[in-house]
């Protein structure tokens, strides 16, 4: 027989109040443990190589010029309408492509994929165009390229 039997229904018994309080305290403890653990699993400091590099002041890249950054695997290109940055990693199997100034093309040495300076595939096995990377103007007035952030093709960076 339940202990609460015979009592008015609308009254919260001491037993019930203690049960609810206990359950609530346990839920708070479990919830707190989950939040703490999730927070713990997030590193606050990462010792990873930088993903962002500085090209320099805008004048460094003249119109029609292609700069190559081998460390960060990116091209910085300036056209009359503005700047854009391309990843130099081939979309086929991840080889690092090269700029050929005589042809005005980007060519992959591994399987011969050829790309235009807009990253479009002109020939070869590459399935997708080269990635367009985000460009930002730093507070010091220098151009930075963020190699982990992709922007839609044709996004021109203007000053």
């Amino acid at each position: 027989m339940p202990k609460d039997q015979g009592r008015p229904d609308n009254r919260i018994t001491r037993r019930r109040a203690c049960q609810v309080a206990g359950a609530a305290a346990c839920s708070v403890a479990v919830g707190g443990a989950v939040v703490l653990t999730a927070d713990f699993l997030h590193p606050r400091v990462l010792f990873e190589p930088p993903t962002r590099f500085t090209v320099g002041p805008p004048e460094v890249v003249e119109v029609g010029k292609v700069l190559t950054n081998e460390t960060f695997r990116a091209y910085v290109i300036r056209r009359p309408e503005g700047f854009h940055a391309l990843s130099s990693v081939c979309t086929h199997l991840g080889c690092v492509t090269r700029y050929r100034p005589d042809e005005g093309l980007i060519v992959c040495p591994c399987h011969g994929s050829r790309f235009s300076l807009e990253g479009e595939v002109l020939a070869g096995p590459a399935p997708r165009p080269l990635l367009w990377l985000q460009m930002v103007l730093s507070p010091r007035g220098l151009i930075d390229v963020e190699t982990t952030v992709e922007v839609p093709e044709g996004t021109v960076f203007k000053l």
Partner: protein
Amino acid sequence: MHVLRTLTENRVWRSIVRHGVRPTNRNRVLLITENVFLHLHAAKARRRNLDLSSTYYLGGLALILFGVLIVTGFLLMLYYHPSVPQAYDDMKELQFVVSNGPFLRNMHRWAAHAMVFVVFLHMLRVFYHRAFRPPREFNWAVGVVLLILTLLLSYTGYLLPWDQLALWGVSVGTNMVNAMPILGRQVRFLLLGGNIVGENALLRFYVLHCVLLPLGLVLGLAVHLWRVRKDGGVLGSAGRRRPSGVNTP
């Protein structure tokens, strides 16, 4: 016989094993039910279910392979540091310097491959014998969890040699996680402990491989084996023809 009797009929032995060693049916049953490990198993089995063709012993084989993996894995851990680039050097040291290193490493490797294979065959056996039907449907679900844990163990172990295969295998896998809607990026970040497949990722995969996943597998196994007993033993190929040509129900 006399040695056996002196060994088993003293206070110390009887405090551990309460029943005697006389070959009675009661003692045979007690041997199973009084043992914390064996009691997961049924005390009695149908003779038909002991035939090779009723289970092909695939679950038992998977269990033995898991045991081999635990023992060899424990030994490998003694020579392995989960850090970059030490991990690769340790793997090479195991291959070329440590006594019996190649033997133990290959045993771990081949047992891992075999376990994945045998677990798949076990699942096919259960499926084709229709042993997933009630009352065994919950045990099928537990089995699926065990299969996933086996595959995850196989996958996390793949990163540990820290060679090109490992690096790209994990890059591809975690990029697949990245493609998951909404939570993808977050889960990938937590798995790798960062944005790139680096030292944090190696350590996390090592901890998963050596602690969390084996622990989960052992717990799941206990439930799985216990449920086999609770669901009335294994279900072999019921109704198949006996060699004598008599159809048994």
